[in-house]
Each structure stands twice: as structure tokens, then as C-alpha cells.
């Protein structure tokens, strides 16, 4: 799997191999050590170490005043983080599963996203919310959703979806320096994925996509875990003489228009791959953005979207796999697209 970010200069720091979860923890550790205002909040993030062991042992290093186990109160907990962010703290709030953010939409969307605007700029809400998302764990419909598109629809929020350990750390550190609310959608199946991660502090810019693989025949815009599936498919396609360019969107609000449009102008074909439900998932926006841009004139084929099936995530593992795009689906769509002429 070719994980080179391509368009982005690597930080100068030395790197080590870390898992995605470890990289996130390292970012939080750095932030907690550097800034007294940083606190972690969430359910079972203390001695339990988080449902996915992302916070791990941080409570032992920073104490329960800074690594705060909340009661099971998502609306209130998120609201406390919002109020704390408005008044001087830098909370990193972990939803145990992003599905539970359904309980906190009020605070995220009506308060965090809007209060700066409603107050004419008099406050800001530098809150970071971590959202473990996605299917593949056999946890069924209420623990497997990919709801990121909802948040990308909301002005006032920034929304990122790191696909690598390096970006998971760099985007979290960038989110902490951002004066506005940033939501980080972490894919649960990526937590154990390993990758090279620079030591120390560095920032992965919010709002910038990364070209993970260069290609000339079609552009695959993918998010989160789908980046890896797209890269895997791209390798197979290369063996068939189809060179796919793989764009890792990384930030879904605001979208890096220029990188996406630039790639489409070059390849003239666009495939969007994402895990969220196809209808109104992030691929809808990518497609529409391209179709209303000057890049439209470069298109040699319809824009194809591969998104989640129009159903909740089922429990049975075969059904579960069938409910989200897999490598063979990408291969099939890419081959058809590469062959298509308008």
C-alpha cells in the first residue's frame, strides 16, 4: 500500500512506527503536557482507557482532573465541553461511538457551530470532538454509522477524517490550534493500523487533501478507510494498465476544491468512494462540486459514486461487508469508468 502523502512535505522530524490509536494518544499527550488548558472528556476514557483504548494510560499521567470520565450524558457532556471551550479551556471530547453524537446534535449544531456567528464574533468555541465511526466490527446498526456528512453540512464546524496514523496525530494537533470547533471522524478499523509517525509536535493542515497515488486515467476521491481500499484497488488496476490517482480528502469541511478539481481536470474521470450511506454522503458533494465547476468540461464520463448501501449496518458479517464498498466494488467501478467514453 502506497501511503506517501505526495503533495505534502513530510515534517522534518524523525519518525517511528505507531498505530493510529497510538498516534492519537501521542497527540493528546503532547497537548496535555504543553497546555494546562487542554482537558480530555468522555465516557470511560480514564482508568478504562477508552472503549477503543485510545486515551489509554493518560489518566495516570495527568490525573482525573484533566482526563475526565463523564457520566453517560452525551448531550450534557458535549455541552459542558462547549461551555468550557467558550470560557478558556481546550477540551477534547470523545464520543464513545460517533453514533451517540445523535444525542448531542443540539449542542454541536445549534450551539458550538453557531454561537460565534450569533454573537457577531464575540466568542469562539475551540472544542475538539473525537468521533469513532464506521462499520466492520460486528456491532450492528447503532454502533457502526458513518454520519460525517451531517456535520459537513453545517457551517461553523470543521470536519476531518484522517486515514493514516500520521494524519491522525497531525490533524488532532491542528484541531487543537484551531479557534473553531473541529470534529474528527476516526475509523474504528484503523485504530490498529500502523504507520510512520513523526515524533514531537507537527500540524497536518485542516482543509488540505493529499494525493496518495498519482495517476492519469481516473481520479478516485476517497475518505478514511476507503483510501486504503482505493489504494489497494489502484495497485491491481495498475497491473491492468489503468493508472488511478487516489485523492485522500482528509478534510470534508471545508473541502479542498483545488486538489480535487486539479486531479479531475487531469484524469477526466471521477469515482468517489466513501463509507457513509450513498445518498447525500460526502460523494454527493464531491460530485456536485465537480459538476458545477469548470472541471465539468473536462469530464469524459459520468461521475460515479460508491457509497454505503441504503440500509442500516447489519449484524451478519457477510451482510455487513456487503453494506459498504469493498475493493472488488472499486475495481469494478473503476474498470467500467476507465472504459467509458462520453
Amino acid at each position, binding site marked *: 500500500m502506497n501511503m506517501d502523502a505526495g503533495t505534502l512535505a513530510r515534517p522534518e522530524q524523525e519518525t517511528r512506527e505507531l498505530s493510529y490509536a497510538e498516534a492519537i494518544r501521542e497527540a493528546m499527550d503532547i497537548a496535555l503536557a504543553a497546555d494546562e488548558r487542554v482537558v480530555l472528556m468522555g*465516557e*470511560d476514557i480514564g482508568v478504562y482507557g477508552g472503549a477503543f483504548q485510545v486515551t489509554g494510560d493518560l489518566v495516570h499521567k495527568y490525573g482525573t482532573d484533566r482526563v475526565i470520565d463523564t*457520566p453517560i450524558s452525551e448531550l450534557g457532556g458535549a455541552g459542558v465541553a462547549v461551555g468550557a471551550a467558550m470560557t478558556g479551556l481546550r477540551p477534547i471530547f470523545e464520543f464513545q461511538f460517533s453514533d451517540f453524537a445523535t444525542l448531542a446534535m443540539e449542542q454541536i449544531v445549534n450551539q458550538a457551530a453557531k454561537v460565534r456567528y450569533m454573537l457577531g464574533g464575540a466568542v469562539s468555541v475551540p472544542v475538539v470532538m473525537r468521533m469513532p465511526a464506521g462499520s466492520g466490527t460486528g456491532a*450492528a*446498526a447503532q454502533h457502526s454509522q458513518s454520519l460525517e456528512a451531517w456535520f459537513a453540512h453545517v457551517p461553523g464546524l470543521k470536519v476531518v477524517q484522517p486515514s493514516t496514523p500520521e494524519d491522525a496525530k497531525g490533524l488532532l494537533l491542528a484541531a487543537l490550534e484551531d479557534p473553531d470547533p473541529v470534529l474528527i471522524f476516526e475509523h474504528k478499523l484503523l485504530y490498529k493500523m500502523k504507520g510512520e509517525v513523526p515524533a514531537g509536535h507537527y500540524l497536518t493542515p485542516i482543509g488540505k487533501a493529499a494525493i496518495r497515488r498519482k495517476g492519469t486515467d481516473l481520479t478516485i476521491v476517497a475518505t478514511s478507510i476507503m483510501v486504503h481500499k482505493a489504494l489497494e484497488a489502484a495497485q491491481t488496476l495498475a497491473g491492468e494498465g489503468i493508472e488511478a490517482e487516489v485523492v485522500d480528502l482528509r478534510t470534508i469541511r471545508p473541502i479542498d476544491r483545488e486538489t480535487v478539481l486539479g486531479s479531475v481536470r487531469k484524469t477526466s474521470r471521477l469515482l468517489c468512494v466513501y463509507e457513509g450511506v450513498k445518498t447525500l454522503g460526502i460523494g454527493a458533494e464531491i460530485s456536485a462540486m465537480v459538476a458545477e465547476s469548470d472541471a465539468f468540461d473536462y469530464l469524459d464520463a459520468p461521475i460515479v459514486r460508491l457509497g454505503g448501501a441504503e440500509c442500516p449496518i447489519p449484524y*451478519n458479517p457477510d451482510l455487513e461487508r456487503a453494506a459498504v464498498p469493498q475493493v472488488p466494488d472499486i475495481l469494478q467501478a473503476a474498470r467500467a469508468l476507465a472504459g467509458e467514453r462520453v
Partner: protein
Amino acid sequence: MPDLLPENTPFAIARYTPDELKAALRKMYLIRKFEEGAEESYTRGLIHGTMHLSIGQEASAVGACMALGDADKITSTHRGHGHCVAKGADVSRMFAEFFGKESGYCRGRGGSMHIADVEKGNLGANGIVGGGLPIAVGAALSAKRLGTGAVTVCFFGDGANNEGAFHEALNMAAIWKLPVVFVCENNKYGMSTSTERSTAVRRIATRADAYAMPGVTVDGNDFSAVSEAMDAAVARARAGEGPSLVESMTYRWRGHSKSDRNRYRSKEEIADWMARDPITRMADMLVEHGIATREEIAGLEAGADREIAEAIEFAKTGENPKVAEVTRDVYTEAVQ
């Protein structure tokens, strides 16, 4: 209580027939064995995902359902296998669900976290902590409006008592005097977080005062105590006098889910609670009061073992759902 019985006869002994009591103990065995079987199947890789075992809490589930018939409803939780068996489900179809089979209660779509048996009145386990609370109130509203006479029992955990849904649901049930009983199964922890750290009051049952409804705390490992409190609460609900809150103090022997490393509690605490095994206590009570002999009880246990073995076999041999049907049942009638 019939006056032939001595003063200190436990409620359950006085209230239920020997057959009912033995059936209840059998259900408790069935829950225990079901979960042990599920755990083993999980360990052997036959079941995927995760599961939340209620081993140690069997008296609470079975005791709470004693006063209910098939027309009555329950809403259950992520830790819902016990409630499901207690409400009369067939363990074969439960196992089939865990194995993701078409013959499962949810046709393989739901798994452990959504186990349900709508025909027997179990509206389903719920993956959302507190998610079942308003739904239970809705079921009680239906019963009241449609005059069915049904009562709804709403199971939830101590952790769920801090969700906003708890507050909203109990308040509405109270102001509308709905036939619902809220059963808080307090096993001391919401995942890793103890009630001392999560909840401002020592006894959750006292929160009933905030809704002007009766609230009682009972020993949830004492079948008779649970069934006694529930008998009163269900009767009150059935009589149109409104909701109650019953706090059932119990303990889960296993970790929260399959990923728990038990960092938040001590071995001693676990051992202490295992010594208060609700099944042993129930069996002893039946023997003590001459309801069943040790042999009969051993027979009940062996019967449960057999039933579970057969259920696992049924589940293993069931058919998998067709992948082409992945979007089936999203809507009642297929949408293009």
C-alpha cells in the same frame, strides 16, 4: 399471603405455585447457560462482534418478569439476553441470531445488541444506553389509549440513569399516569464508571421523588425480593395508578463487554458478589421451603444444559441471510 404459611415465608413462595417457581429457576439456569454458551462460541470464533453478559443478574431479569403475561411489553438493553429469556424467548432462535442466521429472531440483522421477541412482548434490546426509556413510555401510552390493559416494564442500567432520556421519560410517564414500571438494574458500574463517580445520589431509587412516583431499592440477587417489588409496581400500573421505579441491586460477574480488562474493580469485589449467586440462592430457597428437591433442581439444570446444546446446534446449521437481501426490511414495502 395465605395464612397457612409461616410469617417469614418469602413473598415468592407465597405468591407463586411450585411449578411457576421451578419454571422461574429453570429460566435462570437457561440464561446462565445461554450466556456461557454464547461466550464460548464467541471465544471459539463462531460469533463475531461483541456481547454484554448478564451472568450474575439472572434473578433480576426473571423476577422482574414474573408478574407479566405475553401481552405485556418489555424494553431491554445492550445487556438483554436475560430479559429476553425471562420474557419467554426460544433460546434456539436467540442463538441463531447470535450466529447471524436467517432463523434468528432478527433474521441475522440485529445480533446480541438487538435481540428481540416481539410476539412475546419483548420490543428489543437497545444499543443506545437509555434508548428504550421513551419507547417504553410510548408502549404504555398505547396500552392506555387502546385500553389493552398491558403493562410495560422498562429495563435500564445504573449508567442509563444519567441520560436525559431517563428524566424526560419518567416525567412523562408520571404526568400521564402511564402503566409502566422502570427497572433500574444497578450493577454498580456503567462500563468502568461506578455510580459513586457518575451519579449524584447514593440510591437511584430516590430519584423517583423527582417524578412523584414510588421508588424502591431491592436486593436484585434475591428472586423473591425482586418479584415482590415488581408485583406491587405492576399491580399499581395495571390499576391505572401510574408508574414506579424499582432499583434492583445486582452485579455482573463478567467484564462490561468482550474488551473489558477489569481495571476499575477488584478481584475481591467480584468474588464477594459471586458468593451471592442469585441462582444458588433461588435453588436454596426452593429446597428450604420444600418446593423442589436437590435432585429436581439438578434436573432443571441438566435440562437447561440440553436445551442450550440443542439450540447451538440449531443455530449452527441455520441458513445465512442472502447477501442480495441486504436492503430488505429497511422499509415495509421495498423502495426503488
